């Protein structure tokens, strides 16, 4: 990188300014932050695993391989396996339309995509009860055709899709907007087909943002409690997802088993965190590489 003299100078000033506070202020703030993080993040995290293993490994293993727990995991995986690819396709399509084209109602569309963030998950669940419930709009018709939506797997999948709707699109829109559409235009001028352009130009450019969005979608899909709770019907072994199963176990005084299943969800969160950090690091590297490319040319 060929930074200019003035850039180096500016960087020096900035770095000195950041550390110009008295020593006690700096260490005081660091201690405060570490204490806060320990109290609110590390201690609860440790508590989940201590509680889970309180009665030993055999109880832990038994709780995880219990039939209802396995079926809860299975259902959680199915819900995520359907919700994530659908929202991936939708998110790319929406971000593409919003970032690369101008049309009427664009801001309205963005607001609409954000709606699941603004709506409480309980409301998200109730929307489906109002639509597909026996007393709802399509209730009679669904009963006549013997289609089960709520209190069954489809309802859980729908609720999961709803609450994870914005993640991919929200991640991609600013990225695509920043990149502009020159590269795509160049590809088209050089004779690439639309699909070829998507595959070789657009997607590689937003690769890390996309993966980041998918990771977030997946984490939320597996962890969602509120919306899924409303449409689940809580039939053990059939319509309980992992978070719902944790609640049931806890209410049955089965604390060790509840925390055992909770620890799996916590592990999932930790894996998500590691993946997320890795993706952010990769994204930053590819951004730097792009910058270098621009400067070199």
């Amino acid at each position, binding site marked *: 990188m060929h930074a200019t003299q003035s850039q180096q100078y500016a960087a020096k000033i900035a770095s000195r300014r950041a550390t110009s506070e008295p020593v006690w202020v700096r260490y005081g703030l660091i201690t405060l932050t570490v204490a806060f993080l320990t109290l609110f993040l590390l201690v609860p995290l440790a508590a989940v695993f201590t509680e889970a293993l309180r009665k030993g490994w055999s109880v832990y293993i038994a709780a995880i391989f219990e039939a209802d727990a396995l079926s809860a995991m*299975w*259902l959680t995986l*199915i819900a995520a*396996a*359907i919700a994530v690819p659908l929202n991936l396709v939708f998110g790319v399509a929406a971000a593409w339309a919003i970032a690369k084209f101008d049309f009427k109602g664009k801001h309205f569309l963005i607001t609409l995509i954000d709606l699941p963030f603004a709506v409480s998950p309980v409301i998200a669940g109730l929307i489906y*009860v109002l639509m*597909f*419930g*026996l*007393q*709802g709009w399509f*209730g009679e018709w669904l*009963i006549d055709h*013997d289609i*089960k939506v*709520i*209190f069954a*797997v489809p309802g859980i999948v729908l609720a999961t899709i709803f609450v994870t709707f914005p993640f991919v699109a929200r991640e991609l829109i600013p990225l695509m907007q920043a990149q502009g559409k020159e590269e795509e235009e160049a590809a088209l001028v050089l004779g690439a087909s639309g699909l070829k352009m998507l595959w070789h130009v657009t997607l590689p450019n937003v690769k890390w943002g996309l993966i980041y969005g998918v990771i977030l979608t997946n984490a939320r899909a597996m962890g969602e409690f509120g919306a899924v709770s409303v449409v689940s*019907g*809580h*039939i*053990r*072994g*059939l319509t309980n997802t992992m978070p719902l199963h944790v609640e*049931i176990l806890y*209410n*049955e*005084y089965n604390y060790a088993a509840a925390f055992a299943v909770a620890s799996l969800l916590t592990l999932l969160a930790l894996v998500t965190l590691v993946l997320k950090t890795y993706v952010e690091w990769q994204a930053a590297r590819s951004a730097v590489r792009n910058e270098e490319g621009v400067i070199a040319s």
Partner: protein
Amino acid sequence: MRLYSSGLLWLVLWHGLSVQAADLLNASYDVSREFYKELNPAFIQYWKEKTGETIAINQSHGGSSKQARAVVDGLEADVITMNRSADIDILADKAKLIPANWQSRLPNNSVATASPTVFLVRKGNPKHIKEWEDLVRSGVEVIIANPKTSGNGKYSYLAAWGSVTQKGGSAASAQQFVTNLFKHVPVLDAGGRGATTTFAQRALGDVLVTFENEVQLIQQEFGEDKFEAVYPSITVLAENPVALVDKVVDKKGTRKAAQAYLDFHFSAQGQAIAAKHYLRPQVVDTHTTFKKVNTFTVKQAFGSWADAEKTHFNDGGIFDQIVQK
């Protein structure tokens, strides 16, 4: 990609098909889990011996009003087992899933088991709580489930009210007493199990007002040496009715098994299992010794659940008035 999506389809189908037509679903209230964990296997075995059919019984538990609401909204429960008849009445009123006379279809007004509302105090009874009046002494904190959302809370409230009126007190003095009582309640949990957790796990309050069967279960779970049951001289008897959900069983073709399952509740074996879980059997004498307690039913003290509901728990009813004060 094609492999992935066909695999996924297969998974969903497999999951969907694993729900067999012969399976029964029992939508029940919050604190009946332990009872059904024992009753269901017993019935499954009985049914297999009798008919050769293997069935499975699925359970769904939650606050009773919430569960009733779910069935009204389309949760396909073959049977509904609640802790008060009002939560089954709404299946007839709101959704026409069952006939209005559902209570007359089974013995004893469809009430298989019952449990009086009693007190649980900490070991040694440090606050010397023996009677309803003791709950409103200064410095006593009482844990009760929210009467707006749980049957357990409604019974506790009505028990307190009836403890005055059944002894000849006026409605005005009953209201005075209940108003005073709820001033001693620091938190209102949404369901009976939540109130238990608050009292036993979080160690809040001096006395928990809940069903006798829950009180016994707490002592079993948390140890006899931590708590003591206290029986007031008069209290309400919480009756646990069961009902067949006609529309669902006719659609699923499960009427025979579902009916037999309900009948099993009233059989000697079913009643004995109930007694084991501290639910008082109502139709068969199982020779289990339950503490003698002077009780009244909601019907005796308040006319009917519908009346009690209207006067006390509906929006703007007496409960709303006393908690606003």
